[in-house]
């Protein structure tokens, strides 16, 4: 039975937008009890599809043609006061950003109870009971505590559970999820996807699931619709679209997705370029009269990296991977330990350190100064170091050509470039000082998949050409596998496992690595459903207050009393493969 049908829907953007229409002639149907994934890159119109159904479009966005048929009525032509009556009881929505989707000044219980207060005449006591039951159903560890908590007291994953509880409170027929797991860590994402799937099958809710991630599609979708720039380019059963894509664009997208597979290992020189020993860093909020709270961001990290190799560092939020990156380039002072580059300590003076190590940043929109020409930003440091203005310009032009940009674009401003192009400018800037070591802090996580592949290939080519050594920080295990020679897994400021890529991915030993690898969605429904899944409980604990001894013991299924008392040291279990676990065990995940 068809629950929702978009019929030749065209949605117009306000005058002055980059294109006249967000959606053009979009038709789709969703049956009761079905999960339909709408997948596409940024600008595909997938989110506007969701907001149009809900009637929550941004000001100026309007339905120009077509119908939004839901249970026999056209939502696009419903009078303004009728729509709120449907929102909640019939259609509900979960948003991307759990951190901002709840009112920060209102207790979670009150925000949840609002659903019944608004749409039913239930007495207050019944509402309270139902709110508690709803929180229990989404598996929040302490439902009573959560009712009285303010949003900032919950983690991102917990907030998203509250959002789901709220959306499903009145048992709607249709649940719209707009990238509900994009902002979450990968182990949390696995939990939330599982939860949505469970609740959906228990209640028979139809789900319209918006995502950019084909791995998520493979995990959750019954059917898939692929969108590109406001048009539906392909639709069909999930297995069919992912397994045998018919449209060229879908094929390209799928090809660009880095899978948990990788090129063959390569020979690497024995000469160490980066040696980190016992690195520790604690953040101490300053201030005479403020309460002191210390965050142990890094705790005794030791790493070695050889010339021409890439070290991948993976970890979820709070793992300390970004702190490690910032310490390694001299942006952050550290408390203990040493960092040596080519055998010499990292110079304390910024000017000298710049020649040893450079950095590529995460956000291509924030990493370039919006008010200065890109050429100046690439050439400024050589000029400051004494290179003549013309020579530096010429060098910048060369670098632009090297990273695949038109040297004539040197005089333009950052806003004239796309995200991928800006990341290329960032790489050119890092190369300007001819460093031996480049630290890449999540360099592709803000980019669309098709662009990710290009940037990674560029980094690969540059490494070959200039014998560069990379530290590659990422939360995405697939990307890391693609580019790294060695991989370190971090959890709450410590390295829990480090090894050669092949060894670590094919024979992981630490339970956390097992969970992490198993949580990564793979864009292949057959493999996805066949492989073993390990679901962790809870979220990553706050680094403000990490668990004692083995920091992973609170979420580990193998934990015993030893793990809560003695911290496991990092031990070499095979040549070049070290694990910090009392009970290491080889396990094949992918």
């Amino acid at each position, binding site marked *: 039975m068809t629950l929702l049908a978009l019929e030749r829907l065209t949605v117009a953007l306000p005058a002055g937008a980059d294109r006249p229409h967000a959606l053009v002639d979009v038709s789709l149907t969703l049956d009761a009890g079905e999960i339909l994934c709408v997948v596409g890159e940024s600008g595909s119109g997938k989110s506007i599809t969701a907001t149009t159904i809900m009637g929550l479009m941004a000001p100026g966005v309007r339905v120009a043609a077509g119908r939004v048929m839901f249970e026999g009525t056209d939502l696009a032509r419903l009078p303004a006061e009728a729509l*709120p009556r449907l929102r*909640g009881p019939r259609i509900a929505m979960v948003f991307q950003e759990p951190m901002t989707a709840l009112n920060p000044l209102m207790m979670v219980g009150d925000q949840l109870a*609002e*659903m019944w207060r*608004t749409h039913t005449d239930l007495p207050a006591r019944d509402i309270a009971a139902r709110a508690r039951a709803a929180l229990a159903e989404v598996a929040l560890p302490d439902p009573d505590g959560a009712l009285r908590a303010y949003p900032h007291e919950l983690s991102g994953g917990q907030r998203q559970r509250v959002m789901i509880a709220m959306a499903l409170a009145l048992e709607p027929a249709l649940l719209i999820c707009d990238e509900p797991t994009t902002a979450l860590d990968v182990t949390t994402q696995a939990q939330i996807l599982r939860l949505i799937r469970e609740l959906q099958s228990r209640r028979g809710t139809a789900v319209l699931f918006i995502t950019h991630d084909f791995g998520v599609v493979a995990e959750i979708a019954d059917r898939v619709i692929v969108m590109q720039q406001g048009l539906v380019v392909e639709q069909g059963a999930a297995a069919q679209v992912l397994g045998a894509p018919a449209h060229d664009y879908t094929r390209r997208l799928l090809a660009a997705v880095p899978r948990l597979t990788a090129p063959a290992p390569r020979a690497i020189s024995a000469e160490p370029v980066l040696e980190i020993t016992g690195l520790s860093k604690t953040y101490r909020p300053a201030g005479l009269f403020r309460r002191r709270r210390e965050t142990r961001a890094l705790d005794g990290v030791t790493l070695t990296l050889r010339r021409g190799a890439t070290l991948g560092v993976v970890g979820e939020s709070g793992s300390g991977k970004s702190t490690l990156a910032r310490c390694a380039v001299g942006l952050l002072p550290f408390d203990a330990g040493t960092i040596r580059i080519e055998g010499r300590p990292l110079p304390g003076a910024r000017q000298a350190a710049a020649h040893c190590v450079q950095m590529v940043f995460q956000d291509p929109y924030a990493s370039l100064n919006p008010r200065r020409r890109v050429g100046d930003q690439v050439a400024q440091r050589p000029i400051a170091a004494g290179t003549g203005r013309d020579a530096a310009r010429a060098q910048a032009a060369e670098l632009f050509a090297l990273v695949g940009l038109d040297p004539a674009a040197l005089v333009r401003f950052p806003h004239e470039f796309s995200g991928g192009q800006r990341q290329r400018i960032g790489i050119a800037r890092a190369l300007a000082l001819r460093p031996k070591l480049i630290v890449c802090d999540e360099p592709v996580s803000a980019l669309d998949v098709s662009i990710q592949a290009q940037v990674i290939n560029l980094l690969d080519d540059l490494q070959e050409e200039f014998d560069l050594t990379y530290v590659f920080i990422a939360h995405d295990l697939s990307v890391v596998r693609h580019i790294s020679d060695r991989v370190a897994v971090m959890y709450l400021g410590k390295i829990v496992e480090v090894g050669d890529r092949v060894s670590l991915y094919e024979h992981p030993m630490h339970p956390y690595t097992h969970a992490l690898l198993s949580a990564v969605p793979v864009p292949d429904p057959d493999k996805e459903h066949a492989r073993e899944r390990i679901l962790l409980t809870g979220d990553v604990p706050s680094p403000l207050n990490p668990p004692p001894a083995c920091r992973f013991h609170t979420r580990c299924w193998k934990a015993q009393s030893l793990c809560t008392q003695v911290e496991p040291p990092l031990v070499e279990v095979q040549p070049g493969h070290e694990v910090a676990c009392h009970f290491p065990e080889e396990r094949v995940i992918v």
Partner: protein
Amino acid sequence: MRVFSLAARRLAASLPTLLLILVGMFLLLQLAPGDTVDALLAQMGGGDAGVARDLRVFYGLDLSLPAQLGNYLWRLVRLDLGFSAIYGKPVATVILERLPATLSLMGASLSLAFCAGMGLGVIAARHVNRWPDTLISTLGLIFYATPSFWFGLMAIVLFSVQLQWLPAGGFGDVAMGYTGWRRALDIAWHLVLPTLTLGLIFLAIYLRIMRASMLEVLSLDFVRTARAKGLREGRIVTRHVLRNALLPMVTLIGLQAGTMLGGAVVVESVFALPGLGRLAYESVVQRDLNTLLGIVFVSALLVIAVNFAVDLLYARLDPRIGA
């Protein structure tokens, strides 16, 4: 408890600020031409050098600068603000006599500005870019651009001289000999025009901030969540937007407390109110530096007290503070 310890910490943090002000002011006034004794002698119609020297010894003005500063601070710790040569009374007494008028004027103006500013800001934001918004925003701009003393004078011309509705000045009509409630009512009646005069510019500021803050909050994600929950616009504003939008307004009270006290100087002067501001003006004109220093001290205390209250209020409104 969380709220209280936070506010206490903020209060402790304002002690160095207070010290900085007092030391700075003391040193600044040393640069002034003439001292208390000069002012006193001028008041008495002159005197010979011997009298002046004796007086300087009496007031401790013959000591070295650090010693004088030390004496001064030590007296302040004991809440002794010194003696006003001009008024012939301890400065503390003079100031205490003048405090009620200023406090009632400030309290009334602040309430007017905050409440009216909030109400008008909400109305403007809910009808953004339509006629109620245009009207309110234009009025706000004009209020902001009106010099308070001029508005006060014009109000006197209109309401006191022409229409004879309201008194032109004074802090209650002493001649009528009212007591109790009658007196309070009489004072309130006399404060209507001064309150309007002082409150107008702050009303304009609060109105503008409230409008901007409402618009900002209305664009946040959790408001979209509330809409997706099927809440009506009216409920969204009262239950979700208002409290969030009030946070910058509350901050503003603290930031504007000093400015408001400064505004009181002019308004009290226009309406002949026996307040702290007028006292400040008189002591500048009469070079009564002891009193001036005392006023600076008391005003700083007042501003710190307002900020303390604002901190308490803010921490109550926002559970994230101090967490």
